[in-house]
């Protein structure tokens, strides 16, 4: 029997959840028939008495000072319509465990608990179709949630354990092989045939568990077939993409690099025996169908990557970079099976917020980009950075006899086929077929796990550690044991509920799990740490000197594979690529616009330029007490800085700088120059705050359409750009990730390629955080200097030209001059000669100037030469250029000798921006007229 407790706020205490939903209904659905929304939480407990439920209501669930409750009866009265929304059975509700714990602490022991929310809609003229629209677009994501029409009879998920099955692969012809592969394994025919012949040689058929293990290990997601493939570009063979990047990195012989491309994250030297590391991941496919859970588990996954670096690192920062279609895209333009960008944006932000904030990891660097062609699938990039003792920064090797210890969350059916699914194209059916690949994260579980691993690591109790990410145990244990061999007793894995098939347990991607290799003599100490921190730990098996992956389930062997076949049996792919150089030379030059200040306002209001402050405010960027250059500063705290600077070792002056850059618009036009721009922008962002270009390292993230010849040709050019950048600057790539599934295929065969994205992240060390600057202008009367090389007429891909629908010459970055510019800026900041600095990116000088003015609460007077085109001057977006504020007494000519620089004006006390061509005033605009469009869009989207 289930007891229901309903809890709602007293009317005088308000109902922020209801008010928020009402705002969304009005703003995004245009439904006006609803006048008020009240909400209630519903708590359910199985097998307790009504008296016990009443006790829980009073002592745990409802607080009389501001709430009312009811037992097994409605609490919201007089509504036209009431809708209850709950997670589907099997989707883990993080609150359930807390409810059982607190009830037990109060002496009430329930068999199961659950919680959901009830929405009561008020309004005389509410139509049913309004309610249905609200449910579809705002309340329920059918992937994980449902409307509760009937109270559940039980909260316990039951199921009978099943055994493993053999798959008659020996009899299959090519068609049958591909049927087996499609929508499940995502392997091609050649790979399926290899599997077939392996088992023919073995004289038996594979089990489902073996097939799943191979599919996961060989998936694009886990084995990066394209990046390792032999490439034939326009008929000529070229070095594989990954190899090119790794070679370029090793050629730099960078003294600070401690580990590159070999561990879960890249590691560089810090100070005083410490090292810092970084990893940036994508989570596009899950986020496309369930943005909240997708973004949460994306964060959780990349945090575990850092946690699993070396012998365990502490996560000290998180970054978030998103690409969507415009939030105001008409619904009819969204392809079938895809979610609206406005919903995606808000739910992804909520997911990143709830995971990072609850784990106590500051999210303090990121950006959001918009392009129409993201309407079928967003790009969701999450980064994590960590710190660890230098002596433990290299991954350990499990020794024969070490134990396989799984710690953290329990295993469920959630997240099955994540690895294979994220390697496939998105189709209309993606949502229904792969719903099991998405789940809700549990940040508190991961916080416990992280506390335990760091404690055990510092005590030297861990031989090796890795995260359970894509491919679950199969990937984690398989990789860890690849040198030695390993034998697992799968029934030892704790389950969320019974009824999982053995192969499901093996490949499930249930979150918040880590796998450790622990020497037998250290087991008790590790278990002790785990139990103190409420972390569940189970010995799954042992590393053996067998060179085999053996999985047993209740005594029966369900997987017996040669490590050599599993990890090296996949043949190198040969892939053809081609590109045709796009000709952007003959572009028609348009006359300057009549009204520059109007154009200025339009550019400031463009989604790629506008303020993202409402998003950043929802992320805790101060936790860990390490932030010393926040995302926003200035008198009103609304001037965006180019990077974040952290002080990870409290009480020491050492800083860590984190930044990134990407330009999907430019990348779509030309992947080479778009990619150069991304790298230049990432580094400029770091240098603009004071980073030393010689102590920066890079991370690449290629988010590309499915690699057909053309896309692969583009990818090849993007990698060449990265390599050229490394050669020119000496900055190494030490970690990277490719996700090559940004393609949407509709039922009618329509193919939509999502813009190719290269996101470059940069991080590095700073000797003294006091030698850093912010972007806000500090005082009137300063000189404003433009530093760096640019050709103003190269307007291609700029916000201005995108607004006007124009093609133009692409911004060509001179890497040599850029590199010297970086050095000069860094030196000047080090000497305290720069009061404020902002790099030039989307929106050009115009946007940079405006933001610096907002921060200082002052204005500028800019003077250009009469022959300069004011619109090109203001809105050119060549990366690698900087605006700096210097005391009018400083001899800027000496400071910037050897690099292009020009004084363009002065700061003034009036809150306005004016532009003169010689003596002739072109325009004068009040800051308020620029702030309004710049802040408006995100304030509306996020009701801020």
């Amino acid at each position: 029997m289930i007891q229901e407790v309903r809890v709602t706020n007293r009317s005088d205490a308000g109902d922020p959840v209801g008010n928020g939903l009402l705002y969304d209904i009005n703003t995004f659905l245009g439904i006006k028939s609803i006048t008020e929304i009240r909400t209630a939480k519903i708590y359910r407990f199985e097998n307790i008495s009504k008296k016990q439920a009443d006790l829980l209501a009073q002592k745990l669930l409802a607080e009389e000072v501001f709430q009312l409750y009811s037992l097994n009866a409605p609490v919201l009265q007089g509504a036209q319509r009431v809708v209850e929304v709950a997670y589907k059975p099997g989707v883990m509700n993080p609150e359930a465990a807390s409810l059982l714990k607190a009830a037990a602490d109060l002496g009430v022991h329930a068999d199961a608990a659950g919680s959901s929310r009830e929405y009561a809609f008020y309004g005389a003229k509410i139509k049913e179709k309004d309610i249905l629209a609200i449910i579809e677009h705002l309340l329920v994501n059918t992937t994980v949630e449902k409307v509760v029409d009937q109270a559940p009879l039980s909260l316990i998920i039951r199921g009978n354990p099943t055994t493993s099955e053999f798959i008659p692969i020996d009899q299959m012809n090519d068609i049958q092989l591909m049927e087996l592969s499609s929508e499940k394994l995502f392997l091609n025919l050649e790979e399926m045939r290899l599997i077939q012949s392996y088992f023919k040689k073995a004289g038996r058929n594979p089990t489902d568990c073996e097939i799943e293990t191979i599919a996961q290990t060989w998936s694009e997601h886990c084995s990066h077939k394209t990046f390792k493939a032999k490439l034939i570009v326009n008929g000529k063979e070229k070095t594989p993409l990954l190899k090119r990047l790794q070679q370029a990195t090793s050629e730099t012989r960078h003294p600070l690099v401690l580990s590159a491309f070999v561990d879960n994250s890249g590691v560089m030297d810090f100070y005083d025996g410490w090292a810092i590391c970084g990893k940036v991941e994508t989570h596009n496919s899950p986020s496309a169908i369930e943005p909240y859970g997708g973004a949460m588990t994306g964060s959780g996954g990349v945090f575990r990557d850092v946690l699993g670096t070396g012998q365990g690192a502490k996560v000290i920062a998180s970054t978030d970079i998103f690409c969507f279609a415009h939030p105001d895209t008409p619904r009819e333009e969204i392809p079938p099976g895809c979610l609206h960008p406005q919903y995606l944006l808000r739910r992804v932000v909520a997911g990143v917020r709830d995971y990072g904030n609850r784990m106590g990891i500051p999210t303090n660097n990121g950006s959001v980009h918009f392009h129409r062609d993201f309407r079928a699938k967003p790009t969701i990039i999450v980064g994590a950075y960590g710190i660890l003792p230098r002596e433990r920064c290299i991954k350990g090797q499990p020794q024969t006899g070490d134990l396989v210890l799984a710690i953290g969350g329990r295993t469920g059916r959630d997240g099955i086929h994540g690895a294979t699914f994220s390697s496939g194209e998105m189709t209309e059916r993606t949502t229904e077929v792969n719903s099991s690949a998405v789940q809700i994260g549990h940040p508190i579980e991961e916080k416990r796990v992280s506390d335990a691993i760091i404690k055990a690591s510092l005590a030297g109790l861990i031989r090796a550690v890795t995260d359970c990410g894509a491919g679950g145990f199969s990937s984690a244990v398989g990789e860890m044991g690849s040198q030695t061999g390993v034998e697992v007793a799968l029934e030892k894995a704790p389950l969320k509920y019974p009824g999982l098939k053995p192969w499901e347990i093996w490949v499930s991607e249930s979150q918040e799990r880590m796998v450790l290799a622990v020497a037998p003599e250290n087991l008790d100490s590790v278990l002790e740490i785990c139990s103190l921190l409420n972390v569940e730990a189970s010995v799954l098996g042992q590393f053996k000197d067998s060179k085999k992956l053996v999985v047993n389930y209740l005594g029966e062997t369900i997987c017996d594979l040669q490590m050599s076949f599993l990890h090296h049996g996949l043949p190198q792919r040969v892939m053809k690529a081609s590109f045709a150089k796009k000709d952007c030379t003959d572009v028609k030059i348009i006359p300057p616009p009549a009204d520059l200040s109007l154009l200025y306002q339009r550019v400031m209001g463009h989604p790629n330029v506008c303020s993202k402050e409402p998003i950043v405010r929802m992320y805790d960027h101060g936790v860990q007490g390490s932030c010393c250059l926040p995302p926003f500063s200035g008198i009103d705290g609304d001037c965006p800085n180019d990077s974040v600077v952290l002080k990870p070792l409290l009480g020491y002056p050492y800083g860590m700088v984190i930044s990134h850059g990407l330009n999907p618009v430019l990348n779509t036009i030309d992947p080479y120059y778009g990619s150069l721009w991304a790298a230049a922008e990432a580094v400029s962002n770091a240098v603009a705050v004071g980073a030393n270009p010689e102590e920066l390292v890079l991370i690449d993230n290629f988010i590309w359409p499915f690699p057909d010849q053309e896309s692969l040709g583009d990818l090849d050019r993007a990698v060449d750009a990265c390599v050229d950048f490394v050669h020119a600057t000496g900055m190494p790539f030490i970690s990277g990730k490719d996700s090559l599934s940004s393609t949407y295929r509709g039922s009618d065969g329509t193919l939509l390629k999502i813009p190719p994205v290269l996101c470059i992240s940069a991080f590095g060390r700073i000797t003294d955080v006091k030698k850093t600057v912010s972007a806000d202008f500090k005082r009137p009367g300063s000189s404003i200097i433009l530093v760096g090389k640019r050709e103003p007429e190269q307007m291609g891909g700029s916000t201005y030209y995108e607004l006007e629908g124009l093609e133009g010459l692409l911004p060509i970055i001179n890497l040599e001059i850029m590199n010297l510019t970086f050095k000069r800026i860094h030196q000047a900041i080090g000497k305290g000669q720069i009061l404020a600095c902002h790099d030039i990116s989307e929106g050009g000088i115009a946007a940079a100037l405006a933001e610096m003015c907002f921060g200082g609460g002052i204005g500028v007077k800019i003077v250009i030469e009469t022959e300069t085109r004011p619109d090109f001057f203001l809105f050119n977006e060549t990366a690698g250029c900087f605006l700096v504020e210097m005391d009018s007494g400083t001899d800027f000519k000496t400071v910037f000798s050897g690099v292009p620089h020009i004084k363009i004006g002065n700061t003034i006390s009036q809150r306005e921006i004016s532009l003169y061509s010689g003596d002739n005033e072109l325009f004068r605009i009040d800051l308020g007229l620029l702030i309004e469009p710049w802040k408006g869009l995100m304030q509306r989207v996020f009701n801020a």
Partner: protein
Amino acid sequence: MKPRVCILRTDGTNCDEETFYAFNKSGGESKLVHINMLRSGEKKLLDYHILVIPGGFSYGDDVHSGKILAVELTSFLKEQLQEFVTAGRPVLGICNGFQVLVRTGLLPDRQVSGKIKAALIHNDSGRFECRWVKLLIEKTNCIFVKNNESEQISLQVAHGEGKFYTDPAALNKIEAAGQVVFRYTGDGSFPTAEYPANPNGSLNAVAGICDSTGLILGMMPHPERFIDQIHYPNWRRGNQLKSQGEAIFRNAVNYAKEM
């Protein structure tokens, strides 16, 4: 002798290390103590001179912020806590710790009763928000702000459930007893109901309160995030050179030295 500071940890605690540093920097001897160590008897509260419940999301803030931890404390550590308070030792709750203190009953009434007289509820905005706010330090007997009365300081808030809320009678009682220690202020030092200066819609702009003895303090803003000049977002603008969160820890340590 350095006063020993018990920094209470549990699942989801996440501001413990910076709080640890803040007390050490202020002359205390910080210890991270997991609640399981107190429940098992391995550690005793009275072994420490100051008790701090730091910020974070204890048990995910499920049901209500700080609620699950408050229930655990009142169920298993009631006597120890009451003993500690009766012994006249300082207790500090920051953010989630403040939420725990009101939900145990220690604030405003210094009783580990689970009877809730005032609550911290969802921000009016309905959102978690992280921003710097200005605070007025009221005239009180609170030992954590000794000699700082009527100063105006800046600290960071980072919470989704920080609206101080109670019924008019209880509110008047708290005000009359002079238990309001911090208020959100706008420009000038006047308490404000206006967003974002008052980031959550707290009644009477209350950002922190103490008990009648001034030994138990709960506050939503994070003093441990401003114990170094460079914590202040605008330190580069030349103002705000004093680290304005530090006094709270130093006062507590100095008081404990004289206990």
